[in-house]
């Protein structure tokens, strides 16, 4: 490691021993890292020093570390997944920050995402919504000849864009209303746009919205903070589609 590349940051991190425990910020000063080190690796480095000192390491969620699994979270300097747009926390590098900067790291804060420990929150609520209807229940058979079911490029692209949602929870974490609408709308859209998914679209929209409401997520007031912070740039037009699907389904009942 060339010395000129070393940078130091102060990490102000939320520490909380357990779900019922009272948490507080602890500032770790002069954590040594480099601009090309990822944010999570910087936390790893800090954790190693904590372990060496016999202290509890900071608990945070992560898995793939390449932006596809949706496990990483963290609310960094006022933004879920940090200041970068269209990127997850695991794709965030220290070059985004200034040498000597104090970086505030908080867990997702939403009533439906209770803290488990430190920066790790329980995002089981999103799994429950997905399980309520985010699938196709019948057998669609094996892979078809691509020409057998014609789908326009436009629709295919839109469905693919919706399907890139990784279920990370940043949308609800960013929302002042604690609303899960961006996630639910992406999951409803990715299927509603395509022929096999369309068959159960109405029932799916009703079931997933009912679960979302039951779990205590808020009412969307279209602030758009979710889409602005979403690491996958899921668009607000998905929410309009969900509203449409849901309202049409209810009026038909």
């Amino acid at each position, binding site marked *: 490691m060339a010395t000129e590349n070393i940078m130091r940051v102060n990490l*102000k991190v*939320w520490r909380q021993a357990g779900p019922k425990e009272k948490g507080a*910020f602890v500032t770790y000063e002069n954590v040594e890292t480099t601009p090309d080190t990822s944010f999570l690796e910087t936390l790893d480095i800090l954790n190693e020093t904590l372990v060496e000192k016999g202290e509890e390491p900071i608990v945070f969620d992560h898995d793939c570390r390449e932006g596809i699994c949706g496990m990483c979270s963290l*609310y960094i*300097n*006022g*933004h879920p997944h940090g200041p970068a747009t269209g990127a997850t926390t695991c794709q965030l590098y220290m070059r985004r920050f200034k040498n000597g900067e104090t970086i*505030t790291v*908080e867990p997702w*804060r*939403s*009533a*439906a995402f209770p*803290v488990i420990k430190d920066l790790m929150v329980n995002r089981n609520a999103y799994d429950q919504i997905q399980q309520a209807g985010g699938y196709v229940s019948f057998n669609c058979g094996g892979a078809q000849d691509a020409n057998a079911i014609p789908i326009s490029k436009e629709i295919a692209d*839109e469905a693919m864009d919706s399907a890139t949602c990784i279920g990370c929870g940043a949308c609800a974490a*960013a*929302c*002042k*209303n*604690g*609303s899960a*609408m961006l996630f639910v709308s992406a999951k409803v859209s990715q299927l509603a746009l395509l022929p096999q998914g369309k068959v159960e679209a109405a029932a799916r929209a009703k079931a997933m*919205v*009912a679960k*979302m*409401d039951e779990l*205590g*997520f*808020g*009412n*969307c*007031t*279209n*602030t*758009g*903070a979710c*889409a*602005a*912070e979403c690491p996958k740039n899921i*668009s*607000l*037009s998905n*929410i*309009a*589609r*969900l*509203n*449409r*699907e*849901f*309202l*049409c389904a*209810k*009026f038909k*009942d």
Partner: protein
Amino acid sequence: MNLFILNSSIGRKLVMSITGLFLVLFLTFHMCMNIVALFSAEAYNMICEFLGANWYALVGTAVLAAGFIIHIIYALVLTIQNRKARGNDRYEVTSRPKSVEWASQNMLALGVVILSFLALHLYHFWAKMQLVELQHMAGTNVDTSMVTNGAYYIQQTFSNPVNVVLYLIALCALWFHLSHGFWSALQSMGLDNKTWFNRVKNIGIVYATILVGGFAIVVIAFFIKSLCCAA
């Protein structure tokens, strides 16, 4: 339909958006009517007469009041539920992304400003016009000579600079409420897509500007008139 307008989040938003757009429609008529006062006091007073204490106007007033009440009750319920969904633990650092409009996060506060203004406004006009007519119909001994002289009350109200300032503040709040509310209502009803997204937003802002501008012109015009006449 099993009461989804009460017990589902999207159903509640539908009520919010329909009542909101209904109020926008009302404001559109109200603004057009006010513009008439700029040109002719007699014509304006004729409209006032037409909208006096007759059954059509009374039913209209009742429906309008219901629109306001439902919009406000739902606004309160939604806001309370949303605060609960957010939880008790707040973020230490918050930073509003550039694309998030300030108005969208302060709809209730803007609504409360509009509501306080509404009380003042009813006191300035309705209480001196339709209400007096109603009292008269109920047999109370009141002076009804002025109940359709809206033009007089406009001049009286806007000769007072305090009222002018209060009305303009309320109109600003209304502009912000609608700059978000208009497109938000269409989005809530599901009438939006990628192509129309920015168009709907811009239409909403242009519409809010025309609406609020129309009201503001009347306030300012009568204030200027009062200054000229006084001089």
